[in-house]
């Protein structure tokens, strides 16, 4: 029934076929999946319900698309009217979402900068994506032709880019990577139509500006505060919520005394001007590289009896936070991992109650969570049906080692790093957190990969079929009952899971899809296929298909030189 209704809705918006208005991006995803998290809220919850707890056992692969140049795909594909847009570092593919067959391929000149890519944003007839050397590129959604291309950060100064951009009603918002290598982070906005620069928000103040006192008065140009994950957007308030990365050097804090604003924070920015409305810092004066780059999930829900505009984040530092997103006040903070040794809890004002002696030392200090965090960039999801927040938690600790070597400008210096004892390799646990209380409703402990170390990056997806989809460290994509955590289905992808799942609909069928390793997979409910049948084929001029003499020559040449390359 629901399917019919959504189909009808699709019919109503058909005149907009192939073009995405900004209003559509604000709706919870159905057939289309219009951004990194499916919509602007970051909930990663789909209203599609054809695949349900009762039938998910019949989920079977439909197609696999291999990306030859990929090593680890980290993108969430975007789907618009039956066309899937998938990215790898410096390349974009358009695929027929029903069959996985490619329609066009955009390949940017190879860059020596090595950064993953997490996908495209879409607005109108254009796609937006970032190159590893920090160009923001607008492509035509039908052809992949470049409409404009702006360089928004200097790759020669350790800036790089990996995030999927975010669109507001008329702007494209991007952030920068490189926070462990001596950059000063910022959020940048560009006019979607022309590529003209609109505003910039620096995540680290300049000397003399408000906030500089949190850096001992002298915030440096290598202070970090990268913005390497996609933020979220409240279209009603016209406010962006962007999370920020760690201060630098990562593990040595002596040269940056103070809280180090606005690192490891979430900032609320006016989408038109980039002006900061408020900020909330999760980890003041971080010395464990705990970027706050987990999706800030926007939820309108009842909290303690009254309807509130909320922002939820399961942070890398081990606490699950619930904020009032109108003013940034903390409503709740509860640990979501058991291995948490750096703080006793979070005080009512939002500051962690830090346990002394948990900073890295030259000899090494065992602290939990690990450097990878209690979770990381891979997406959580929230189901308004179950009021549960699903997050991939990591139970792990690291030996944190620091050194006093100060950072020079443009020098990649983390202030040393971490070591993970073999005896303490860590484990992924899928946890369902009750939004209003922060309590863990259920959990699924997951087996580790073959080397026993945390190395994959599996995210989650919640659907209206009362399902939660997630990956694990051993290379499986799986589904569980979103209400109870009962495992219902699994599929071995044969490679490391490095992305978050998503879902879309085309031709009356719901698909589950996930990029992983070097491939993207698509699944749907089994239905007996009709035997392939060929149409009557007519060639208006058959010799048009015989290779011309010239082509024959080129083929020969190709063979010759292929042989020489071996």
């Amino acid at each position: 029934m629901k399917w019919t209704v959504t189909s009808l809705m699709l019919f109503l918006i058909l005149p907009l076929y192939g073009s995405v208005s900004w209003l559509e991006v604000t709706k919870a995803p159905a057939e289309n999946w219009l951004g990194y998290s499916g919509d602007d809220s970051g909930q990663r919850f789909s209203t599609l319900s054809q695949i349900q707890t009762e039938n998910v056992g019949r989920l079977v692969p439909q197609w696999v698309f291999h990306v030859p140049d990929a090593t680890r795909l980290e993108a969430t594909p975007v789907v618009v009217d039956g066309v899937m847009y998938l990215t790898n570092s410096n390349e974009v593919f358009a695929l027929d979402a029903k069959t996985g067959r490619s329609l066009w391929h955009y390949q940017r000149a190879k860059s020596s900068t090595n950064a993953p890519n997490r996908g495209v944003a879409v607005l109108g007839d254009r796609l937006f994506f970032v190159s590893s050397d920090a160009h923001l590129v607008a492509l035509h959604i039908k052809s992949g032709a470049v409409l404009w291309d702006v360089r928004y950060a200097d790759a020669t100064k350790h800036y790089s880019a990996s995030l999927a951009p975010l669109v507001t009603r008329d702007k494209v918002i991007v952030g920068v990577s490189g926070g462990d290598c001596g950059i000063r982070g910022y959020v940048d906005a560009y006019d979607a139509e022309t590529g003209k620069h609109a505003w910039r928000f620096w995540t680290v103040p300049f000397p003399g500006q408000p906030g500089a006192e949190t850096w001992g008065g002298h915030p440096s140009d290598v202070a970090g505060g990268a913005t390497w994950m996609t933020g979220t957007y409240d279209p009603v308030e016209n406010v962006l919520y962007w999370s920020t990365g760690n201060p630098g050097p990562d593990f040595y804090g002596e040269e940056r005394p103070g809280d180090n604003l606005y690192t490891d924070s979430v900032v609320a920015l006016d989408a038109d001007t980039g002006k900061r409305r408020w900020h909330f810092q999760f980890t003041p004066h971080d010395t464990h590289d705990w970027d706050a780059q987990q999706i800030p999930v926007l939820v309108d829900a009842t909290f303690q009896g009254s309807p509130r505009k909320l922002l939820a984040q399961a942070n890398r530092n081990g606490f699950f936070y619930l904020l009032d997103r109108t003013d940034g006040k903390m409503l709740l903070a509860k640990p979501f991992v058991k291995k948490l040794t750096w703080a006793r809890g979070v005080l009512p004002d939002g500051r962690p109650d830090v346990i002394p002696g948990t900073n890295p030392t030259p000899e090494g200090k065992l602290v939990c969570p690990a450097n990878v965090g209690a979770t990381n960039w891979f997406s959580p999801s929230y189901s308004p049906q179950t009021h549960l927040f699903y997050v991939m938690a990591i139970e792990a600790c690291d030996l944190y080692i620091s050194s006093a070597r100060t950072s020079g400008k443009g020098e990649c210096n983390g202030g040393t790093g971490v070591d993970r004892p073999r005896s303490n390799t860590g484990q992924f646990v899928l946890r369902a957190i009750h939004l209003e209380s922060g309590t863990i409703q259920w959990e699924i402990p997951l087996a580790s990969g073959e080397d026993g170390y945390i190395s994959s990056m599996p995210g989650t997806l919640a659907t209206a079929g009362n399902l939660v989809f997630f990956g694990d460290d051993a290379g499986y994509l799986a589904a569980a009952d979103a209400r109870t955590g009962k495992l219902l289905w699994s599929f071995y992808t044969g490679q490391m899971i490095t992305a978050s799942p998503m879902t879309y609909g085309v031709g009356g069928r719901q698909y589950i899809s996930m990029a992983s390793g070097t491939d993207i997979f698509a699944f749907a409910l089994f239905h007996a296929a009709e035997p392939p049948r060929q149409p009557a084929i007519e060639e208006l001029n058959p010799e048009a298909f015989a290779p011309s003499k010239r082509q024959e020559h080129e083929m020969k040449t190709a063979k010759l030189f292929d042989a020489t390359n071996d």
Partner: protein
Amino acid sequence: MGRRPGISLNAQDLKFHLIQLSGRSETKSYRSQPVYCTLLFSCQAFSLNELETKCYLIEPSSALLVSVLFFNVTDFNNFPTSQLAVSRAPQRRTVRSIWAVASIFARLAFLGPFLACFAHGQTPEKSYSRVVLGPAVRQKDAIQSGKLLFESICSACHGVKGQGGRGSKLADSEYIRQMRAKEIFNVIRTGVPGTEMIAFPLRKTQLGDLVAFVRSLNAVALEQDVHGDSAAGENLFFGKANCSSCHMIAGRGGLLGPDLSNIGQELSVEKISAAILQPSDDIEPRYRRVLVTTADGRKIEGLVKNESTYSIQLMDLNANFHFFLKSELQTLISYKESLMPVPHLAQQDFANLLAFLSRQGPGEFREPKAKTNHGGRID
């Protein structure tokens, strides 16, 4: 976005050309040492003997000195195309003799080539390949001597103009264009086992000359001279000739034909010309034209974006996508002709259009990239 208006070259173009011509393997060293690139050009200027034009014989800093002293050229922005497009090898005897003296003077004054090579962290061998295999294509002398060698050794199989025959085609070939200079060099030197292409263990200078000549046979339109008014060609493209109803350049135009924003870097002038005059001769993949009839009788004409035994993906003439399983179709009719009509243009208009298209390349020169070493790591 700084699209190149005409055919004049500026400093950025020069760098771009060097990178284009130097091939992938050498690109990095040029990028890290842009100054060196300009020095190499200076080197060419005082070629004394046609067979001894190799820059590595000349100490780079002396080359710079000489170029400053004798050419008074420090600003590449004002460097006319004609001087760059061909080697600036001496045109007049008097100048030639001045260069000769200057060159000897410079060699005495400085420490010599090998020190210079080491100073740049290069072994002489690497430096050799960088110089000879890099911008050698611009060295008229190398090309000339390469041509003579080619005619005596290679043309029997590959044709006088590299057009192919018993041997493979070497002119205007995508495959050759994608090969690094060093690869071409090695193919000639060691041959291709299992084929009639035997090894030619020539002197390195000779091999370098051959490589220079072969590469010159594969210049793309951006590197070739054109005779036409690019600005007038642009007006035609977006106006009377109606090209932009199907083709896009720099974000302007239609969707049915291939995007031409980089066409000057992809094809030679000859191929662009052929593509306009005989559009059906060589239809790009993803632009094949078909007419399908669906099971319910709808007829859709469009371009085949992809096709397998089981499915077909079309873009119709309104640029909408249609995806079918083959079993959903009654008939599938393939056209021989491209959707593109042959334009009826006056000779001058055609030349102008060709000039405009030939200049379409990367709109913006991309600065060298620093290697960041945090790839693969979680930020």
